């Protein structure tokens, strides 16, 4: 019984941690959307900023990956 409750907490916690992935998705969408908006305003400057775009996406995504990792740890490693 005690183990069951612990497992329940584990799975609920994993599910909650997975919300972070969705938040990261919002962040990545925000970065990409703003880049596109800027790129359409000034297409000639867009080509030079793709590296910045990917760095921004990578930073936004890293935190989502962290939460995904927390979920995985809760599921499989705790």
């Amino acid at each position, binding site marked *: 019984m005690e183990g069951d409750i612990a497992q329940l907490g584990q799975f609920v916690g994993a599910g909650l941690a997975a919300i972070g992935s969705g938040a990261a998705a919002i962040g990545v969408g925000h970065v990409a959307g703003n880049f596109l908006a800027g790129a359409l305003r000034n297409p000639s400057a867009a080509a030079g900023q793709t590296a910045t775009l990917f760095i921004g*996406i990578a930073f936004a*995504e890293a935190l989502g990956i962290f939460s995904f*990792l927390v979920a995985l740890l809760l599921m499989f490693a705790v």
Partner: protein
Amino acid sequence: MGKIFFYVALALVLVSGLVFAPEKAELAIHPMDQFRVSALFGDNISWYTPTNVTLWMALAVAAVFALLVLGSSRRAIVPGRAQSVAELAYGFIYKMVEDVAGKDGVKFFPYIMTLFMFIVMANFLGLIPMSFTTTSHIAVTAILAALVFVTVTVVGFVKNGVGFLGLFWVSSAPLPLRPILAIIELISYFVRPVSHSIRLAGNVMAGHAVLKVFAGFAGALGLFSFLPIFAITAVYALEVLVAFIQAYVFTILTCVYLKDALHPSH
């Protein structure tokens, strides 16, 4: 009329799917089994045992060799297919290093090219079904990131001496804020290798686990397995993109960190 037919057919399919579903349709999904390290011969794993890690890393090395050495062996002025790809990869990374890290970063180009080629080849080889993805392991990516971290720190101190610490002292901020910013910068500097490594391993691991989960659904759904198979196709396409993007991101972040070491002015 056609709409009604469509719905009737859909209902029939649904019912038949339930009727003919496999008896033992339990969801036995083990998405993490694909990452297991196993010895090629025998059971014992010591530090030098040839394992599937060895096999797939050797294949990655062979792929790099085939692309960059065999591909360019004809030294043609008008390149063939393999040579074009090799030159494209060379030009891509060279330009990245030059643009991001600056002119004096170019002498680290072979090092960065090594990282990029290894990661991109390991990622793509890992997308072959039934294969083992070496870059999905935190041990591997942590070593890659730690190599970058140590290199960048050593280069920073060798190039700039104590001036490298100016990276943490934000001279454009108001004076009372600077110690706080210095602490934040210091923490962010030491978190770099963590995020650098977990980003790569996490992306690759997540994508492969999702593929495996959908594959488990496909096994359990009987006639409806076409739905997860469509999903697998879509996710696989995304994973091909991610395999390249993550290698690119790892490389460009290496360049960015290298730029910080070479030119620490904030």
